[in-house]
């Protein structure tokens, strides 16, 4: 196990190093100068030059790369060009929206998807299966921003159960915070739930064909009991993999939903930073997201061992 961990961590560091180079390279070729963006159309050449100097944009690319990377390693993510606040603080603030939103959406999608998948699998080929599968087909096909738009129209504008967007902050209480994140979480969760339900169903169906399910039936378990006691846990590995992937997607991929609901999350931060050419923010946040994805996948790998004793063996 220790050996496995060490090896994983080594390859993890290597991945991060390569990722940092790729990100830096892509961002460096982006046309657009943060200094002139900040000063707008009225600015004079010398003012822009002064600002470039102040931002350290005149140093060589290589030295900027190294100071960025060494900064990241020591936890100093640099200072945003446009906001002039430490990137770490900005990210910290945004994380308090994005992380709960991702978790909320993930929990919602899991709560919907797993029972739906199990239900469909145990009614394979029957009406119940077909309706669940039909619903998932539509769920996967609906563009999430379109769905979000619909949610706002119905629940915010017409029924006025929820705010149309924005985030009031956790200091107003847990309930108020969750309430504000409900519509975005639903919009995010729906397509994910559809995918997850399908994965759950097909994983279960694969398991249902296994001999040990027949053994379980031969012991006297009913079909439902057999699925619950023997099927679900064995089907969990592909499901866990997808949940891991989804979590990283939800963390980073919520840009559009954050846009629709004007939530101050990480995704929108990157999006704004890209259009403002706030390079350091883009670099650091993308790097962080990559780090998060790699870590989540790592954790998912570790949880496999909890689910499947065959992977628990120490060499």
């Amino acid at each position: 196990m220790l050996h496995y961990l060490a090896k994983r961590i080594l390859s993890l560091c290597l991945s991060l190093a390569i990722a940092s180079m790729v990100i830096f390279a892509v961002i460096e070729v982006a046309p657009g100068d943060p200094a002139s963006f900040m000063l707008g159309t009225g600015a004079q050449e010398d003012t822009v030059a002064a600002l470039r100097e102040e931002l350290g944009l005149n140093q060589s690319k290589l030295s900027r790369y190294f100071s960025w990377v060494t900064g990241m390693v020591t936890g100093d993510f640099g200072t945003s060009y446009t906001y002039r606040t430490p990137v770490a603080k900005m990210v910290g603030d945004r994380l308090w929206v994005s992380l709960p939103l991702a978790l909320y959406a993930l929990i919602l999608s899991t709560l919907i998807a797993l029972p739906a998948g199990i239900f469909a699998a145990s009614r394979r080929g029957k009406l119940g299966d077909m309706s669940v599968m039909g619903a998932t087909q539509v769920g996967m096909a609906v563009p999430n921003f379109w769905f979000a738009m619909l949610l706002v129209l119905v629940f915010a504008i017409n029924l006025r159960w929820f705010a149309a967007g924005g985030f009031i902050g956790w200091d107003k209480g847990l309930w108020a915070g969750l309430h504000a994140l409900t519509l975005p979480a639903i919009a995010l969760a729906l397509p994910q739930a559809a995918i997850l339900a399908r994965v759950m169903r097909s994983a279960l169906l694969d398991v249902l064909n296994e001999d040990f399910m027949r053994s379980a039936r031969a012991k006297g378990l009913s079909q439902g009991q057999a699925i619950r006691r023997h099927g679900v846990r064995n089907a969990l590995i592909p499901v866990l993999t997808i949940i891991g992937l989804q979590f990283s997607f939800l963390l980073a991929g919520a840009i559009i939903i954050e846009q629709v609901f004007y939530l101050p999350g990480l995704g929108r931060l990157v999006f704004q930073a890209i259009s403002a050419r706030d390079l350091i923010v883009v670099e650091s946040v993308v790097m962080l997201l990559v780090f998060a994805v790699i870590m989540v996948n790592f954790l998912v790998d570790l949880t496999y061992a909890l689910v499947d004793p065959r992977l628990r063996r120490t060499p």
Partner: protein
Amino acid sequence: KETVTYATSLEPPHLDPTAGAAQAIDAVVHFNIFEGLTRFTPDGAVVPLLAKSWEISEDGLTYTFTLQEGVTFHDGSAMDAADVKFSLDRARAEDSTNAQKALFTAISDVEVTDPQTVVVTLMEPNGSLLFNLAWGDAVIVAEESVEMLKTNPIGTGPYRFNEWIQGDRVELVRNPTYWGEVPPLSAATIKFISDPTAAFAAMMAEDIDAFDNFPAPENVAQFEADPRFQVLVGSTEGETILSINNAQSPFDNPKVREAIAHAIDRHAIIDGAMFGYGTPIGTHFAPHNPAYLDLTGQSDHDPDKARALLAEANLPDGFSTTLHLPPPSYARRGGEIIAAQLAEVGITAEIINVEWAQWLETVFKGKTYGLTIVSHTEPMDIGIYARPGYYFQYDNPDLQGLMNRLNATTDPEKRTEMLQMAQQTIADDYVNGYLFQLAKIGIAKAGLNGTWVNAPTAAIEIGALSWAD
């Protein structure tokens, strides 16, 4: 109700109006947190603010400002003449990062005679100094707090900075020790919603009380029909134009530019892109300004004439060019319509959608473009036509001379005459395609009084707001 939630499209990058592009920062802080020596009224006039009064010398070179008494900054320190000198000197310094440094180039010296009096000396007479000092870039700041202004703005205004949730909102609270009349509302939240759909939803769901300049004109009819809301349509200082790269072939031929002017149907653009909101203009000047000349007839929609002009310019089959479009919907939608209209007379304009940063880089700085659409929102900015290096690359020594004389002129009537001459010149030269004056579409809940109808500057003046009950 004692508070208000006001929304605006753009989030400021930071909160120091003296060190960054004006618009978004001004919207939040100008008149609320920071104040200048003079200020704009909602109808665009310039009136005293921190300067109680002033005297102008005969030759127009010396301005003596007398300051208000008892003014303190939010940190408790007193505002006096030394702060004024510091602020103006800082803005015009060599290493200044003030986005509108040009406003201060006329100043040769700032002197403190006593704590309540400042004398500003000019290099040459400048008729627009008082106007320039009303800009957000000219607000008075204190030396002690200047380092922190970007994140913790400290000014003299009726509201104090409370909190900034980046990406979402800025919160302001009433300044109990304000030197002037204490405003009615105790606190305000300024929210940033750039997405037009989100803006509509937020307004409809009554998450916000007012929207500064609503980004989706197509929704205005719905607000108008709804008794919960009031719609206040006014004008901004934004001349929306189809900028032409005058130095690039074939646009260096005035006939080609004239042809473009006749190919454009302003009404279709205002209708199609702005859903009717916007005033057609025929030159680079705001229609609400008394000096405005209506020259739209000079460039009316006439495709046949446009084709004839192209033929005269030896381009009977038209030509191809690029059309760079920045993000706002007036540009993106208007651009699509213009491309279609140009296609009708044989000009192929390839649409290139760009982010602002890219627009600044390639169009504004790099000048590698054919056509672009942009709204010039600085007030009274016809002077840009006298800058041959400006991105239109229009170089006309006559106009440059005229503008120099204008700057030295203080007599209002003479100024009007000269401004009209300038308007006529650029319209005759068809420097750019003049489309419309950008409307300001304010939406507010019924009962909210004091919102600005027009926008002589980008400020949202919270102090003027109150609720009817």
